[in-house]
Structure formats: structure tokens, C-alpha cells
């Protein structure tokens, strides 16, 4: 598969009054054409910072790229100027944000917000753009698009607003869509509609998706590849079946176990992860999960293990999986 995005050893930090926060610490991954890559992890693990840095949307300062490259079709995004980024954002890479209530401009008609993008990226006249805006709303299944195009965001429900957001992201047929918690603010029935819509558009437009979410059900539904992040690092990566059926990192295992399953007995108690993720002002020297891990060993405290490959696509960073480690089996209660 041809890769359209390659992130290599990316490091992103924030300069704050108290010191430097290392939000993303040396991560690498690729996104193939038409592939859906999910990034999962708890709040503060760096998943949103990763997404925003691909779009160069982080406020700089306080944020800065500390190292690494983000290659989009071979060109390094980190080195692009603001002006160059304007041609990439929206037309080649687009983003859908979590909160459809606050990411649309409340003082502008929905149609006008779509038209803006069309005129900028496709050089259409305003009349053509207006017609195209109606088509875009139709594409994302907004009923009565001719009427809706002249309404303001507050006249739309949450699900409909998210459709508008997706329409906005799609105006220039982007090759990569970054969806940052696109359905978190929505109800399950609306979530099902939006996820179906995203899949349908992906097929139609041959687009790649980076999906950021903490809902493991959504990950199971949508993604080809899964990246598990913890404290700014990738602790496990693999295809969707590797991660759900054969998780290797204790953090991934715990994360999967803390979700109640529909076939679970009511007297079983849910497993959970004790404590909270470490502060990234002074990131731990060794494995960041050390404090919360049931299997922590001496070596974990001081050294972060290198990726251990379980198959060509599936790796985890845990000393337990090192060939020299004792054979400790962490059994999953499947």
C-alpha cells in the first residue's frame, strides 16, 4: 500500500511558565491510501496534539516542533510556511473537530461557510459555489439542502451540525481526513449515522482517515490500523484484529478490559487502571506506565524498551515481550 502520510520520530513540546511539557515524545507511524488509522488513549496522552501538528494547527508559541518529520506525500509539513500550509489545509488534509456546537461560526449562514472554502480552494464564482454548497449538503444527507443552506448553525441539531462540519471538510476532496473525536458529543443513533456517512464518503472519494477517539467500539467499527498512545508515546500498534484479539501491552489490555461488554455478568467487577498518567513536565525516564502497571519490573523504571515486533505490522513497547523476559502470560478474560 502506498503511504500518503509518514510521521517520523515526531516530538512536540509546549513551553510553559513551569517548564517544558513534552506532549508528543518521539512517535512514528504511517497512513496508507484509503486506510483508516485510529489513535486511542486517555485524555492527555497526546493524541489530539499529534493530529493538530499534522495540520500545523498548534499555537506556536507555546507549542514547537522539537524534532522529527511529518511527510505528506514526501513533503515535510514541519518545514512549511504559513502561506504554504494554507494551500494544504482544507484542500489536501482536512479536519473534523469534536464539538460541532463550537467549531462552526455562529454568525454566518451554514452555506456561506461552505462557500468560503469552495471559493478559496476551487476558484469557483460565488454562484457556482452556492450551487456546489447545496450539493455538498446533499452529499452528507442533510434533508432539504436548498432551505438549510441559508440557515444559521443554531438552527441545526448536533448531528446535523456534525454533517455540516464533514461537508466543510470535504469541499476540496481532501486525500486525508483527520477526525478528532468526531462523534463523542453525539448520541449513539446519530453516531451510527455519522460513522456510516464517513465510511461511505471514504469509499467514494478514496480518502485516508486518521480517527482520534477514546471509544473502543468506534475503533472496532472503523479502523484498519490502531495506534495506542500513552503519555506521549506509542506503546502498541497493530492492525485492528491484533489489538483487539491479541493485545500485548499491559496498558492496551487494561484499556480493553475497562469497557463493559454487553455479554458481561452483572456481578463481575470491571477492571480499571489505578492512578493517573504521569505529568509530562518531567516525563519518566523509563516506561511511563510503570506506576500503574501490574507487571512492572525493575528494568521498567529506568529504561524504555524498544519496539518488539509480534508480526510485521504489530509491535508493542514492553519489557515483558522482550525475548529475555520471563515467560509471564497476561491472560485476557475473553
Amino acid at each position, binding site marked *: 500500500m502506498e503511504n500518503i502520510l509518514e510521521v517520523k520520530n515526531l516530538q512536540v513540546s509546549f513551553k510553559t511558565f513551569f517548564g517544558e511539557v513534552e506532549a508528543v515524545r518521539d512517535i512514528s507511524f504511517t497512513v496508507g491510501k484509503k486506510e483508516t488509522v485510529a489513535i486511542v488513549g486517555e485524555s492527555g496522552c497526546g493524541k489530539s496534539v499529534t493530529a493538530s501538528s499534522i495540520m500545523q494547527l498548534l499555537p506556536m508559541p507555546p507549542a514547537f516542533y522539537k524534532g522529527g518529520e511529518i511527510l505528506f506525500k514526501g513533503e515535510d509539513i514541519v518545514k512549511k510556511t504559513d502561506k504554504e500550509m494554507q494551500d494544504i489545509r482544507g484542500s489536501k488534509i482536512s479536519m473534523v473537530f469534536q464539538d460541532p456546537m463550537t467549531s462552526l461560526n455562529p454568525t454566518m449562514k451554514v452555506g456561506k461557510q461552505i462557500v468560503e472554502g469552495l471559493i478559496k480552494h476551487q476558484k469557483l464564482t460565488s454562484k457556482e459555489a452556492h450551487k456546489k454548497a447545496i450539493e455538498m449538503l446533499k452529499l452528507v444527507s442533510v434533508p432539504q439542502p436548498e432551505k438549510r443552506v441559508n440557515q444559521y448553525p443554531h438552527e441545526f441539531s448536533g*448531528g446535523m451540525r456534525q454533517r455540516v462540519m464533514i461537508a466543510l471538510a470535504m469541499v476540496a476532496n481532501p486525500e486525508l481526513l483527520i477526525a478528532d473525536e468526531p462523534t463523542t458529543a453525539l*448520541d449513539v443513533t446519530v*453516531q451510527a449515522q455519522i*460513522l456510516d456517512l464517513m465510511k461511505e464518503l471514504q469509499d467514494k472519494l478514496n480518502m485516508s482517515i486518521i480517527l482520534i477517539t477514546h471509544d473502543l467500539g468506534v475503533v472496532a467499527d472503523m479502523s484498519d490500523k490502531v495506534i495506542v498512545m500513552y503519555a506521549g508515546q506509542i506503546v502498541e500498534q497493530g492492525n485492528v484484529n491484533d489489538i483487539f484479539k491479541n493485545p500485548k501491552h499491559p496498558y492496551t489490555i487494561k*484499556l480493553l478490559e475497562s469497557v463493559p*461488554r*454487553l455479554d458481561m455478568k*452483572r456481578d463481575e467487577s470491571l477492571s480499571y487502571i489505578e492512578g493517573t498518567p504521569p505529568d509530562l513536565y518531567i516525563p519518566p525516564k523509563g516506561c511511563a506506565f510503570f506506576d500503574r502497571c501490574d507487571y512492572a519490573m525493575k528494568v521498567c523504571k529506568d529504561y524504555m524498551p524498544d519496539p518488539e515486533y509480534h508480526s510485521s505490522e504489530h509491535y508493542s513497547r514492553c519489557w515483558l515481550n522482550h525475548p529475555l523476559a520471563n515467560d509471564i502470560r497476561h491472560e485476557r478474560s475473553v
Partner: protein
Amino acid sequence: MMTEPILSARNIKKYFNVSGGTLKAVDGISFDIYQGETLGLVGESGCGKTTAGRTIIRLYEPTEGELYFEGEDIYKLSRHNMKPIRRNIQMIFQDPYASLNPRMTVEEIIAEPLDIHGIYKSDKQKRERVFELLELVGLNEEHALRFPHEFSGGQRQRIGVARSLALNPKFIVCDEPISALDVSIQAQVVNLLKNLQTQMGLTYLFIAHDLSMVRYISDRVGVMYLGMMMELAKSEELYDNPIHPYTQALLSAIPIPDPEVQRSRKRIILEGDVPSPIDPPPGCRFADRCFYAIDECRKTTPEFEEVRPNHFVACHRSGEIIEGTATMTK
């Protein structure tokens, strides 16, 4: 367990006057909650589940209806006579960031209900009770003098739980207590609530939109849609054999964290959005989006009936759906 209802709601209504008509947030719901059980209440945003929870404990004055708590209709009581009852009815709120006063220490927050009800004469006893409560929810004495901003979301929700337990209540309304928390932290709070229930014999009304969590924590589950109760049954029964078309659609929309299962499922995708609760049309509230709707559904509101033992449904076609003879109209 499950002998006497501790709380019985009868035909509870809560309307709000808004510009453009009457918003019928809760439009006649009835149910019982038994001593020591957890009743889950689910539904999508705007279905009235939070309003129902708040009306039940009279944080909102009801428009109509009767609510018996331990046999007494609390809607008939004056504000003054309500006060002793309030000791037995407490609430845990959704947002642990907004529901704790940022200018009060944890000790002051937890002690506030004790002060209001004048439980302890001496400060020493009061402080001991606060420490006891902190320990109960998995925090400790050291936390008492800190302020809410020094805690993580999960810890804050524990403080909220400690506050709700201060007066030894019998019944607690949990309004989306975990939806603002991370997955791994949600499990901590749910386990805590479950343990406290066994320890103290608490009764919960658990309001949430996370259906798999509700199934896990509740003995029985009620499904609301646009101000009305659509279905109510034991949780296993409801999740295994949903009867109401809305419940069926809702359950099929939960994504299951297992790629094989999730990708081979047949989902019922509902068209459109939840209609406006302002002056809703007669008939079943779900008729416009229902794939079994017939003319009758648009004319009369179906009764909320017991169609199987302990399984209540409000649907004209429930009989046909149970027998499997219902034909789709969409």
C-alpha cells in the same frame, strides 16, 4: 431485595413554558423503584431523562403527578416539611468540574449537607465524619484541606459521591455520573458505586446515555424518548429481547469493542433527528422515525402496558413484534 417499592412515580409531568409553546420535557411517566435496586434510565439527549431525575427529587416543581417516597406523596409536602425527606434523597451530578465549588475546600464541600441539616454539634465529630466519608470513597484525610482544582476528574467525582453520602441517604439519583470521565476512570467510579450499594443498601436511579455501562450497573432499565417512557424491563431481558422499535434501534447502534462482531452486525439506522418536544403532535412520539409505524400510531398514544411479566412497553404493535408477525412499513 425487590419487595417494597421505596419510590413510586405516577404520571409525572414537567412542562416548561417557552416562546413558541409548551415544552413537554417529561410527559406522564410512571414507574417503581425497589429497595436496594438500581434503575437505569437511558435515552438520547433531549429525551427528558435528566428532567425526570430532577423532577422526581423535586429539584424542579412537577407540573402534574404523584411521587410516593416510602409511602408518602412528597409532591404534597410544603418546602419546610420536605427538608427531613431530603436527607434520604441525594444526587450525584454529571460534571465533576462544575458541581464542586472551586472556592471551598473538600472538607467544607462534604460538610455542607451536615451543616445544613445540623447533624453534628461539635466540629470534631463533624471532621471525623468527613474523614470517614473520604475513606469510604477511596480518598484520605490528607485530601480534606485541598481545593477541587487539585484533583483529577475521577477523584472529583469521588468527592461528589462522598458529599451525597454524608447524610446516610436511602436513595441517590446519579445523573450521568461517569460521562465526563475517561474510560479507565469510569470503571473506578462505577465499581465504587456498586460497592457502596452493597455496603449501605442504597437504591439508585442511574441516568446515562452509555447503554453498555447502564446494562452493567442496573437491575432494571427504562428507555425514554421525547418525554415518555417507551420500555421498561429487567436489564438482561431488555438487552436480549427488546420489543419497542426504538429500543431495538438504540441497542443496535451501540458499537461493540470487538471488530469481528461489530462488522458482522446488522444495524438499524434511524432516519432523521429527534423531533421537537414543543407541542408535540398526538400519537406515538416515535411514529415518524419508526419502521413499524401504522396509521393508528399517529392518532393515539399507546398505553404503557405490561406485555410480558415485568416487561412494560408503550407500542401499538408490541403484540405483533413479540410474535414476529409485524411487517415493516419503511
